[in-house]
Every structure is written in structure tokens, then in C-alpha cells.
């Protein structure tokens, strides 16, 4: 059921990210909707679905960017897998969890993207990339972290209502 709902949602997020958010940037950074969605979904405990979604979403991002198909998908699966390791830990119910997770995972996601571009032979100024792309993008991701976590939690409750013992 989650896959049926997830695929159109991811496609919608990809189109919004490419068309709308890529024109509304803070410096050169923009929020990463698909990444946020998959991190938030991983935090609900549905790790496998989040990783599968990360593969599909990453491929969509690669299709809509100049990166080779599969590069972002690999990065996103790695990051979402690492995020899923933190799900269910003692601080699960903490409000800070989505924020902390999005902070480090966002930095890791962009860092790995940067590494891929460098490996592909792109000329990149690291301080410029950090100051104008990675930090602004991470900041925007942080702003959207709590709404994304809340939306994912609500969707998870709708798709998998908690069992009630009568």
C-alpha cells in the first residue's frame, strides 16, 4: 500500500523540486523534498520502504539533473540506511530527533553529492559549495524537517493504524 501511495508522491515532489523550488533558492541552496520525505519516512520506522523510496526518488532526481542516473540513488540509499539505524533509539520520541537527523544526514547527503561531482571531474570550489549550496540547503531542510516528520507520521498512522486491544 505504501508503495502505491509513495510512487506518485515522490513523482509529485520531484516535479515541484525541479520546477518551483529550483527557482526559489536561498543563495544557491534549495530544500531537497525527496530526501526530506525519505528521511522522515525512515524515522517512522518503515526503514525498508524508505530505502526503496530513496532508490526510486534518487533515480528521479538523477533524471531531472545533470548527474548520471544512479549516482544520487546510491547516495540516498546510503544516507537513508544510516538514518534508519537511529530509528527506534532511546530518543525516538524527542522533538529534536528529526532536526538532528536532518542536520547530519543533509550534510552527509550534500557532501557525498559533492564527492560524486568531484569524482566526475567537475571543477568545484569547496568553500563556495559549502557556503552557498550546502549550508543554505541544510538550513532550508531543517526548516522543513518538522513539517516533513509530522506529515510522514500522519501518513504512517493512516496507512498502518495502531492496533487497539479491546
Amino acid at each position, binding site marked *: 500500500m505504501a508503495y502505491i501511495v509513495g510512487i506518485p508522491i515522490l513523482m509529485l515532489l520531484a516535479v515541484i523540486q*525541479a520546477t518551483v523550488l529550483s527557482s526559489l533558492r536561498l543563495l544557491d*541552496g534549495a530544500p531537497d523534498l525527496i530526501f526530506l520525505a525519505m528521511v522522515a519516512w525512515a524515522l517512522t520506522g518503515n526503514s525498508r520502504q524508505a530505502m526503496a523510496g*530513496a532508490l526510486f526518488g534518487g533515480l528521479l532526481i538523477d533524471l531531472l539533473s545533470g548527474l548520471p*542516473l544512479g549516482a544520487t540513488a*546510491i547516495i540516498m540509499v546510503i544516507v537513508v540506511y544510516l538514518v534508519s539505524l537511529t530509528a527506534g533509539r532511546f530518543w525516538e520520541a524527542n522533538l529534536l530527533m528529526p532536526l538532528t537527523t536532518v542536520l547530519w544526514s543533509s550534510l552527509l547527503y550534500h557532501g557525498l553529492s559533492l564527492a560524486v561531482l568531484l569524482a566526475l571531474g*567537475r571543477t568545484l570550489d569547496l568553500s563556495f559549495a559549502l557556503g552557498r549550496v550546502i549550508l543554505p540547503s541544510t538550513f532550508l531542510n531543517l526548516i522543513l524537517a518538522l513539517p516533513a516528520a509530522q506529515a510522514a507520521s500522519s501518513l504512517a498512522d493512516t496507512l498502518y493504524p495502531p492496533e487497539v486491544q479491546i
Partner: protein
Amino acid sequence: MSRSSSQALFALILIMIAAGLLVLNMGGFLSPVESLVLRPIGGAQSWLAVRFYAVRDLLASPADVATLRGQVRELQSENAQLQQEIIGLQEQVAQAQVLSALVQYARSQPDSHYLAASVISRDVSPFLRSVWIGAGSDDGVAKGMPVVTDRGLVGRVVEVFASVSRVQLITDPSSVVNVRLQTSRADGSLQPQLNGEIWVGTISQDAEVSPGEIVLTSGLGGNYPPDIPVGTLTSVRRRDYELFQQAVLQPSVDFRQLELVLVITNFQPLPFNQSSGP
């Protein structure tokens, strides 16, 4: 098998699938599939882009906003449907104005054949400077074709699918454009910087270059046709101990406001250089 190792195995399988796709893509085997997937996505992007540009244009011009908001309030009370039609018609007028300018430009360049295409999105990766246009191989677009507006050079097509194409902007640090300064006739090459600035480098020390000089494509290298306006020099740096002069270029095209572009379809570029990607 414990839950954590099962998860790790699942992640590994997914990574291997992605890596397999990466290899297949680099071999060029996935282009038909990409075209197939991009067709509906491109359609959705075009649909959303038209509406987004309409809203952005409204918000970007304060004078119009005040007037239009007033009109919208009146119309809201009368008929919500009429309100939507007005916004739609305004966008059509704006598009017609842009198209009119493009047609004028195309008429002034009778040797070139043009294909008008709308910009449907920008590169999702913030590290790359390229845009997607709503025309692809079905419309006759091919890799390497130059892209312009009535103001000047935009870039060139670097990736083509059935219904959409990716255009690498001249502001992308990996783009290569050879240029000629109109007054001094000196040759140079664009050196786009990571911060968005464009420098013109490799200008001979003997050339008398001054700010305000118009920069055109030179046609050298075979990537672009000659004499397409690129921009104007805003400052020149000349040091005796350096081999070349350097100048800062103000592009004639506003890359933030790109909505419609022209693809020059009858230009035959020299074999496409893969090193200018991705």
C-alpha cells in the same frame, strides 16, 4: 538473521541495483527508458511551470500586483472562474510578447532555423547550471545545438530525450565558449566562475580592450555559430606580468528569468565533446 543485518543486506541490494543502472546508463543503454519516463514528467513540469511563472510574474512586479490584486478582489466576489481566466490571459500576453521578440530576432537572422521551446525547469542539482526545455528529439532537437533568446546566447543542448532536453548554460563552469570582442576584434574565451560571475580570459595583451565592449561568439572551435551576442564587458584587468588580459562579462541574457528560448536547429556542431558534461 537479525533485523539490522537484514536491513543492511536490503540496503546493499538496492545500492547494487542503483550501481547496475549507473553502469547501464553510462553505456547509453537506458536512454529509451529515460525518454519514456521523462515524457509524463516533462508534461507535468510544463503544466506546473506555466502556472508557477504566472504567479511569480505577478509577485515580481509590485505595480502590477497592486492593480491586479484589486481586480482579483472584485472578480472574486463576482466569479472565481473569471479570475482564473484573467490570470491565464495575462500569462498568454506575456508569453506572446516574449514570442514576438523571439520572432523578431529569428527574422533578423534568416540563415538560422529556430525552434521555440519553453523552459520547464532548472537542474535539480544546485551544483550544476542547466535548464530543461520542453522540446526533444521528437521536435528535431539534437545534442550540441546552440540555444539563444532575442537577447543573446543561453547555452547549448547537452542531453536529449524524446520530449525534453537539457541545456547547459554558459554560466556553468564546465561550458566552453570562444568569443570575440566586437570593437577591438580580440579573441577570448568565457571562464564561468563558481559564484556565477563570467570572466573573459585569454585576451591578448596587445588588444585595446575597454569596459562596455560588446562580446560575441567567435565561432572558433565549432561549438557555436559566430556573432551571437553574449554580453558586455564591465571591467578589464590587465597586468604586465600576465600572459593574457582578463575581463568581467555582464551576460545579455537574464538567466533567472528564462521562460522561452530558441534552439538553432540547422547548426552542425563539431563532434560533441563529452568532457564538457555532465
